[in-house]
């Protein structure tokens, strides 16, 4: 017995020693915090994604079945089915099997499993970090060949009717997309490969209590400095309120990085080099946020016990808030409450506060679609045709947007050609038409959209910077603030690195 215990202790000691030795080695790895952030959005795309066109191009006679994983609810599925019928009329040989898999994470989990068994679907709803994850196994099809300038951009398919159909995305079609959303598709690795097309999008806008602002002669703030001044004034008017709410701590951090042009993450390099958000500029804005939080100027979703700050915005009792940044997909929750059959106030919508209002920045969110590689090139071509069809189909985009509350990734001038959508936008107002009002606002700020690069660990970084802000706000007073912020940054970076190694 004694010998056994001795042996165990010896073995574990050895293990620990070895482990510590190795740790030392690893921590000496390359650390590169000083590099400037390359803007992946401006990287020119490669002309080829490596697709090899089968002889004779797309075969419209051979039946081909493709699968599409999504998360659409019942109403949206009906709209999708309708479009699939129309698509079937165009390409009678393509059969699309669309299936719903719970929420975005469920789709992600399902596909991850299937990839490991080479059993993945052809098309799927995705977020950037999912695609990065799938791409560890090189599973995602790069669309470059079929984009303007690509190898097969000018290929065509002759339909049964004799009509000639563009296989590639034409330049005219590409121009329909709002650039920020389109560029999200290549925010991976070196930025040269396009893996996703935008499907339905949302962003953040600032809802404000228009009546309150007018009654008190307040100007809607456009910059952060103006925002804090406005908060101070609002607190003088209504001392019990929390003037400003910002739902997502993560978005707040990431957006401020973008607006300040400071480093957040980078998709390649060593683990240490990927998580670049611990820098002076970022520490400075977290400090400023913390001070304003301690002043009682604002709150966030998690600090609001996990409930959307829209609850405060639409609240009839204190604490209320008079400005609130939330997702456009949740626009209907910002609808002012009814009191005796009348809306308690009218809501207005503005761009989120900026650092430089001349170059506004707002985050791009919402699902995109990606195509998976397949042994059968006909399936890949069929999938590409469907993706192209759905994403550039104004009627479908309008239907989808009206029912889901998401905004289309298509520019306003194109969307307005759809009667139903135009009618919807015309109904925009600060009460019943608040969702339309936010969609309108989003389409107007079409040059503001950005996304952060996606890679394995990018979603962890997103979660951690959100927690970082919460941890910084734990500070009870200015004295312990610096210490808390320092610790929060270190913890967040450590946890990110721990996650991917």
């Amino acid at each position: 017995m004694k010998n056994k215990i001795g042996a165990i202790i010896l073995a574990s000691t050895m293990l620990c020693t070895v482990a510590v030795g190795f740790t030392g080695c690893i921590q000496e790895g390359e650390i590169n915090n000083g590099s400037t952030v390359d803007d992946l959005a401006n990287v020119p795309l490669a002309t080829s994604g490596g697709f090899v066109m089968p002889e004779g191009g797309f075969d419209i006679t051979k039946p081909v079945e493709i699968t599409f994983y999504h998360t659409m609810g019942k109403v949206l599925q009906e709209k999708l089915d309708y479009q699939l019928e129309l698509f079937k009329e165009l390409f009678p040989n393509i059969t699309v099997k669309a299936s719903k898999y719970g929420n975005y994470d469920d789709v992600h989990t399902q596909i991850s499993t299937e990839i490991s068994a080479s059993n993945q679907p052809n098309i799927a709803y995705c977020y950037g970090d999912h695609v990065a994850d799938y791409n560890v196994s090189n599973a995602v099809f790069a669309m470059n060949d079929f984009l303007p300038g690509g190898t097969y951009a000018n290929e065509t398919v002759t339909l049964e009717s004799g009509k000639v159909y563009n296989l590639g995305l034409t330049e005219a079609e590409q121009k329909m997309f709002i650039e920020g959303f389109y560029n999200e598709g290549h925010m991976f690795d070196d930025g040269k490969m396009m893996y996703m097309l935008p499907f339905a999008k949302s962003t953040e806008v600032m809802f404000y209590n228009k009546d309150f602002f007018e009654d008190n002669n307040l100007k809607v703030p456009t910059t952060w400095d103006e925002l804090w001044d406005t908060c101070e004034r609002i607190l003088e008017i209504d001392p019990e309120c929390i003037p400003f709410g910002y739902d997502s701590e993560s978005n707040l951090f990431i957006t401020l990085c973008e607006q300040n042009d400071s480093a957040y993450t980078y998709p390649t390099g060593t683990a240490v080099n990927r998580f670049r958000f611990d820098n002076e500029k970022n520490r400075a804005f977290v400090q400023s946020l913390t001070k304003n939080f301690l002043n009682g100027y604002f709150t966030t979703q998690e600090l609001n016990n996990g409930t959307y700050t829209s609850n405060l915005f639409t609240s009839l009792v204190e604490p209320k808030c008079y400005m609130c940044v939330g997702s456009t997909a949740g626009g209907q929750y910002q609808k002012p409450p009814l009191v005796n059959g009348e809306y308690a106030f009218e809501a207005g919508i503005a761009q989120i506060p900026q650092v430089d209002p001349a170059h506004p920045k707002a985050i791009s969110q919402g699902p995109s679609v990606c195509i998976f590689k397949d042994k059968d090139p006909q399936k890949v071509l069929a999938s590409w045709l469907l993706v192209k069809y759905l994403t550039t189909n104004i009627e479908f985009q309008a239907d989808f947007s009206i029912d889901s509350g998401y905004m289309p990734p298509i520019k306003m001038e194109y969307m307005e050609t759809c009667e139903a959508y135009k009618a919807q936008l015309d109904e925009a107002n600060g009460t019943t038409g608040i969702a339309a009002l936010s969609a309108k606002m989003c389409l107007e700020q079409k040059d503001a959209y950005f996304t952060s690069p996606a890679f394995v660990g990018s979603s962890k970084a997103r979660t951690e910077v959100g927690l970082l802000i919460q941890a910084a706000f734990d500070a009870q007073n200015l004295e312990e603030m610096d210490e808390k912020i320092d610790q929060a940054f270190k913890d967040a970076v450590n946890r990110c690195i721990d996650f991917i190694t």
Partner: protein
Amino acid sequence: MSKTKEKPKNNLRAWLYLTPAIVILLVFTVWPIINTIRIAFLCRWDSNLAAVVGYDYQTAMNPNIHYQFGFNNFVNVLSAGNSFLTALGNTMLLTVLTVPISTMLALLIAVALNSIKPLKKVFQTIFFLPYVTNAIAIGMVFAAMFSMVRRTPTTDPTSVGIINNLFGLFGGSPVNWMDRGSSYWANIAVLVIYIVWNALPFKILVLLGGLQSVNKQYYDAAKVDGASRWRIFWRITVPMLSPMIAYVVITGFIGGFKEYTSVVGIFGDDMGPYGKPGRLDTMVGFIYNSIPHNQGKASAAALILFVIIFAVTMINLYVSKKKVHY
């Protein structure tokens, strides 16, 4: 060769009967032991990620990616970010706190139960109830009891929660047990209370069973000698019960090191109060959370857990060998 008294005639039939069990055990028990040890020592240097990454099944299917033998999984688990070390610390703390408390309490209850006749069955049944409940579901009930209740998210709590109310009856001021901003020790206190509550039934059952089998003559002899109850308890009950006590302590330690569901029951999958996810993570929690994306790290952690449990069990056995009266 072997000296067979009786010719084994049932060879074929026996193996036939055993086939289903053996096949399943080979696939789901024997292979895992070998494979888990194997992948605990496998990892790759990922040029894309530029980091040492543990084994994961999806990537392993890619023929272009090669794995190397090494200790990197253990290094990763034991170093950066320290989330495993947090889990290890939490697990140790919970075990060290709950095992003695629950064992002592269970011993007291068992002795008390053993000395009464009327209502004994009723009490016994009541004390066993926590055992037949769902650890996650009742954990959620405990969470509700310790949580503050708010009407709207930002207003002060309308109710400080039933436990704080009970404390209030004795002049205690409300404690933030597990809401946003609660302290680590308050969280641990909630967990300890719940784990002890949950662990009592099994311990009482075993200890009471032991007590009932103690020979009454020892007590009669002691009574004749005029020994005090206290003396009888320490000099007769505890020694006679020592094998059972050793048993509940060992199973308690093993269970303690595998603690996970209690934390999930009370704090949810986030393993921590609002704003502090992962603060109360445990070793098993760490393993389960690592499984989907990094089986190398999960294996390394599972091996460490195994070594710890093995070592603690051995130490327990060693100590009890000296102290236990069989």
